[in-house]
């Protein structure tokens, strides 16, 4: 097992490194750079020479590979450098923006999961075909709505028309209601679809018939036999959903003006704030890797078949 863990850690490190390198290359290849964007500004009226000086003062004029080595060196020591645009250390920016996103993302994910489970199980329990049909088409509808559009509509309807939740200067939890919904809707869709598929699949397995033959009601079978078997495979898409979660966070935070990593990303891309973007990429890559690792380690815990040595009985 430990050997396996080491191997996985090795892979994780590789992924981090590769993600870092790719993003570094992308950022270097972009036209213009943070310094130009910030200082080539009519209000400042700096001439090319002055800008060149500034660039030098950021050590952004040395050879690419030198910068690469320096940056990777800094990152490995946890020093993410200085944001050109905001003029503050990246670490402080991340520290300032992370909590909001964590709150949003975790709540969003929970709500998504709840939605998905509700849709899947209600639709497979209901005796009415029409309700089943309706419920099962909900996920498709959910993925078909542009997130930002949903967000704007929610604001218009619930905040401005119905005046239910303020979006400007709301309470700490009020401010999360609409964003969380906005984020959860698109995430819940794939979850629900996978769940529905798995449930249908598990329902055809012989052990379900056996359970029914014991005299178990459909509810009993669904909760005590189908549920766990159907939920297990959905774990595997957790890693993929994470990406969706981030994309969703960017859009949601932009629409609602939340001060999270998503919004930060959006602004940082706009101003090509390399240091910030690099940090964000590495951060999310790390999260991605960790999540997948957790999922992999979780499987044996949840699925007895993976616990004992495989092929015990051929």
């Amino acid at each position: 097992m430990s050997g396996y863990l080491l191997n996985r850690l090795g892979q994780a490190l590789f992924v981090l490194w590769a993600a870092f390198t790719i993003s570094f290359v992308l950022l270097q290849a972009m036209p213009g750079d943070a310094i130009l964007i910030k200082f080539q500004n009519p209000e400042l009226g700096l001439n090319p020479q002055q800008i060149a000086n500034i660039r030098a003062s950021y050590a952004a004029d040395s050879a690419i590979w030198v910068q690469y080595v320096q940056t990777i060196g800094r990152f490995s020591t946890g020093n993410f450098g200085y944001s050109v645009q905001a003029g503050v250390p990246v670490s402080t920016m991340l520290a300032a923006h992370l909590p909001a996103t964590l709150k949003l993302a975790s709540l969003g994910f929970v709500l998504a999961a709840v939605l998905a489970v509700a849709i899947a199980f209600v639709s497979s329990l209901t005796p009415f075909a029409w309700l089943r049909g309706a419920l099962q088409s909900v996920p498709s509808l959910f993925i078909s709505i542009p997130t930002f559009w949903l967000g704007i509509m929610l604001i218009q309807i619930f905040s401005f028309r119905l005046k239910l939740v303020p979006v400007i200067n709301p309470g700490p939890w009020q401010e999360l209601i609409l964003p969380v919904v906005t984020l959860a809707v698109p995430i819940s869709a794939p979850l629900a679809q996978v769940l529905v598929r798995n449930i249908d699949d598990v329902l055809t397995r012989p052990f379900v018939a056996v359970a029914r033959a014991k005299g178990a009601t459909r509810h009993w079978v669904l909760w005590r036999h189908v549920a766990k078997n159907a939920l297990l495979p959905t774990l595997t898409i957790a890693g993929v959903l994470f990406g969706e979660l981030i994309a969703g966070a960017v859009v949601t935070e932009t629409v609602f003006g939340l001060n999270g990593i998503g919004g930060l990303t959006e602004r940082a891309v706009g101003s090509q704030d390399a240091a910030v973007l690099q940090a964000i990429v590495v951060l999310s890559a790390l999260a991605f890797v960790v999540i997948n690792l957790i999922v992999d380690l979780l499987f044996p815990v949840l699925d007895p078949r993976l616990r004992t040595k495989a092929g015990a009985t051929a």
Partner: protein
Amino acid sequence: MTTKLKRLALTLAALSASGFFLPSAFAEGAGDPVKGGTLIYLEQQAHTNLYPPAGGFYPNGGILNQITDKLTYQNPKTLEIEPWIAESWTVNAGATEYTFKIRPGVTFSDGTPLDAAAVAKNYDVFGLGNKELKQPVSEVINNYERSEVIDPLTVKFYFKKPSPGFLQGTSVIGSGLVAASALALPFEQLGDATKIIGSGPFVVDSETIGKELNLKAREEYAWGPAKLTHQGRAYLDGIKYIITGEDSVRIGALLAGQADFIRQVQAYDEKQVEAQAYQIYAPSTRGVNNSVVFRPDNPLVADVKVRKALLHATDAKEIVTTLFSANYPKATSIIASTALGYRDISAKLAFDPEKAKALLDEAGWTIGGNGLRQKDGKELVLMAYESLPQPQNKETLQLVAQQWGKLGVKLTVLAGDSGSRIVDDLDPLKTPVSPAMVGRADPDVIKSQYYPKNRDVLRQKGGQSDKVQSFADDKLNGLLEALASEPDRQKRLAIAGEVQDYVVDQAYAIPIFEEPQAFAGAPYVQGIAFEAVGRPSFYSTWLAEH
């Protein structure tokens, strides 16, 4: 000396006769001002940097105008320069020496005194910049040489050449006075509002970068502009700036009663705002009009005939009526009719497609097979980036493109990330056309716009861009320098007029409309004031019962 001052005042007053008055902005509301309350102000963009000369950028100015005071105060109604931190001043005949008497007892919010030394320090930085700290020279100060502290409350500035614009320059947003501690910081750290120590009626309380900024009133504040009816502490307890990028959210929040005051109200939203008895404020920016400028270094638009043709092909009226409202008057010169030194040259700006066609034919551009004008193998296809800060600029450019299209000239409206945008914008070959505007209530504004060492919108050789091959217009630059240094008022205004004629004769720019800064406020928000160039001042603002 004093006579000179009088004359100046008179001319200003005369000018402002044509000037425009804000609808109800100064009517001190219903009943007596109420103290207290926090104003919720929705900004479209986050501030970038609070180095005072960077105040030209509206989000920056909107904050600086509350937390800093200036030497002088330009009365938005009369455009007259009135005392503020400076109780009085004298200017020598050559406009090369300015002496200011500083009001006693003024302190920065960190307790340090705002005295002659502090003022001198500020202007040395604004006038000369600071290489080590990367602090650039202020665009409103020309020919600055040095300062001299005569006594604790008297400071004198010397100029290499006449700098008649300087007095007005001391009143503008870019000349806010800050404590030495702020000036000691390198430029990039001035993005942190909490580090900006001013003497203004409000002080920065807390800040969430990119999201929110809280100002609180400064209790001991007692040095507002002398001639204002309101004196002493600001009525408001504080101001909450919330960055709300989405237009629809800003306007919606205001009308839903979630916000008190917002910036950037699009023309198309004005109707419904007023429909609900909310107030639209559209102070003129009194500067260079919202226009389209050419980069003559690009061979396609090097020929004045082509530029003239395009000028006459542009129907500013259609643009204004289609996209904008009464708050956006059609341009009658390259600067606003409310601006100092304005000259009405609308005759030269007439929309005349026939003439345009003729000019293009004359210039040798003939309609080709695909309906585009061609000349020795080249097609007349121009590119321009939209300018995000300008109201509905994307739509404006699309309309211009439509109008030019009728002549067989293609204008491609580019969209791009800020990186490519800036890089391409420096290269006349990539962006032969560019939208442009700048606000400032002094003829110098024309210089800021066109002078190679300033904004250099025409992209001249030796200016902002090293990509320029050859183009340079010495006549224009000469005029601009004269404009910046002509001590005599009349002569100076005459030069201002001359420049306007010249720019339009050369068709360097196609002025479209006079750009206001559009704000909207809830009915109960009273006493909103604007400095001469349309940045709000909340010093006298109060919130009526609601």
